[in-house]
């Protein structure tokens, strides 16, 4: 369980990135964090594993105050994957790159091998095992960076913009992988602008603007909140737009439709029930 209590942070006193953020994320949750550029999302993520320390307020991990834990200690529990893969890849093959984090944290050789091959398979990297990360495409590099953190199997996974540069197929596989990890009990936290990715995969959404949390709750209600969408400079999910168009013709349907299945059910009920 992660708890942030009134966390404030500003960069060298010049630029205030967080102005009193409080939130609680329980074990096994899937949470999306959205917000306009500069809303403080990445700064928030860096507080989860101690890269940044709150200047006011506290961060708790499983009820323990984290101010005395080192980043390496927290990295075992919270795996953070950054936006740019190029900031972490430095070894000569995909395989050694993925093994690097495991070795840092002191896993045995067999464990390293086992986890490496498992992760590579999960992310569709098996065929690239001996390739140099620097020769790969942007999307592939991104998956290698992701794999290098996933392999550690941290209890909490925090991903900063994981869908950028991934094609639809890869996005779907990423979603599946995250679902599997989540089913195995891991908490998944994602920062993203990809609203369709949120709708399909994350039951809870936190919206941030100007260093504060402006909405936190079930995805469907946050994403139908006009102010939140506006402040995060997003457009409504396609299904919500479809539902609104539908509502013009059929005023009595719900406005809070965000997923495909909800819209499908509504249309079916308008058409007079499901045909068997």
């Amino acid at each position: 369980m992660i708890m942030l209590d009134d966390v404030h942070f500003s960069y060298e006193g010049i630029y205030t990135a967080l102005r009193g953020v409080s939130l609680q994320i329980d074990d096994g949750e899937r949470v999306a964090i959205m917000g306009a550029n500069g809303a403080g999302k990445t700064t928030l993520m860096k507080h989860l594993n101690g890269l940044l320390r709150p200047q006011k307020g506290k961060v708790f991990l499983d009820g323990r105050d984290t101010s005395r834990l080192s980043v390496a200690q927290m990295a075992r529990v919270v795996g953070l994957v950054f936006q740019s893969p190029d900031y972490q890849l430095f070894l000569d093959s995909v395989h050694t790159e993925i093994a690097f984090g495991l070795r840092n944290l002191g896993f045995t050789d067999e464990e390293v091998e086992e986890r490496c091959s498992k992760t590579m398979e999960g992310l569709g990297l098996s065929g690239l095992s001996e390739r140099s990360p620097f020769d790969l495409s942007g999307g592939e590099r991104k998956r290698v960076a992701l794999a290098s953190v996933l392999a550690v199997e941290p209890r909490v996974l925090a991903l900063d913009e994981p869908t950028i540069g991934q094609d639809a197929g890869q996005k779907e596989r990423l979603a599946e992988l995250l679902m599997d990890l989540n089913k195995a009990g891991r908490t998944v936290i994602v920062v993203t602008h990809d609203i369709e990715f949120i709708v399909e995969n994350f039951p809870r959404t936190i919206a941030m603007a100007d260093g504060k949390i402006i909405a936190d709750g079930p995805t469907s209600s946050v994403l139908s909140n006009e102010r939140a969408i506006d402040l995060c400079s997003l457009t409504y999910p396609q299904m919500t737009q479809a539902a609104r168009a539908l509502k013009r013709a059929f005023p009595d349907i719900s406005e809070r439709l965000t997923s495909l299945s909800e819209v499908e059910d509504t249309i079916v009920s308008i058409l007079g029930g499901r045909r068997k």
Partner: protein
Amino acid sequence: MSLLGFLEVFQYTRRDSPIHSLDPRSKLFLSIVCAVISVLFTDILPLLIVFFCVLPLIALARSMKRWARSMKGLSILLVFVIVFNTLLSPVTNPFSRSIALTIRLIALMTSISVFFLTVHPDQLSQALIQMHVKFEFAFAMSMAMRYVPTLAQEAYAIMDSQKARGVELDRGNPVRRIRNIVPIIVPLIIVSMRRALSIAESMESRGFGASKKRTYMDRLRFRKRDWGVVLASVLALVLLTYVRLYVPLPEWMLWSLPF
């Protein structure tokens, strides 16, 4: 970045000062002459005199604070220089010698910083161009200066990424710490090379080098005071070189510490 803090003295600061308003070419000449004079001498007193002649230039450029901060950052390195020279130097009074070398290093850095503190990267490239350096090289030079802060930012981002993977940068024995530089330096180089390529591509797609003959909005002009600076520098250089080569310095000038 306290370790590299001493480099601050080589970073341009915008100020309204007599030194800033000089032509970069005359400043370059002045800087080089000061640097050459600092290496002409090896004894404590002459070096101190040189140093106290150069320091007012920094004061005149209204940058004493920055200079002092840099020197504070440099102090660790200086202590290092003193200790190692004292221990390893074969001369008869090594401590005195290493003090002299330290003063020389400070004087040298101060001399060179007179130029870098007061010349904007754009002025530097314009100066190079008017000294008939090809535009492409001059441009590359000012780009390099422009990207130093970006590189520093990137280094921090990379450190964060690696820490998140369990690299403990500030723990362990010295060998381990040195090995820990690898995960920082490799991505930094790769990212820089990628960026260099993409900057080159975007510059070409915006027509860089399309016209052979360039014209410039601002051209540097050598004014009377610039000639004055160059003349004074030449005189100082000639005089001191003559002194160094043909005039035996009086006994008191060669004073050194007893050990």
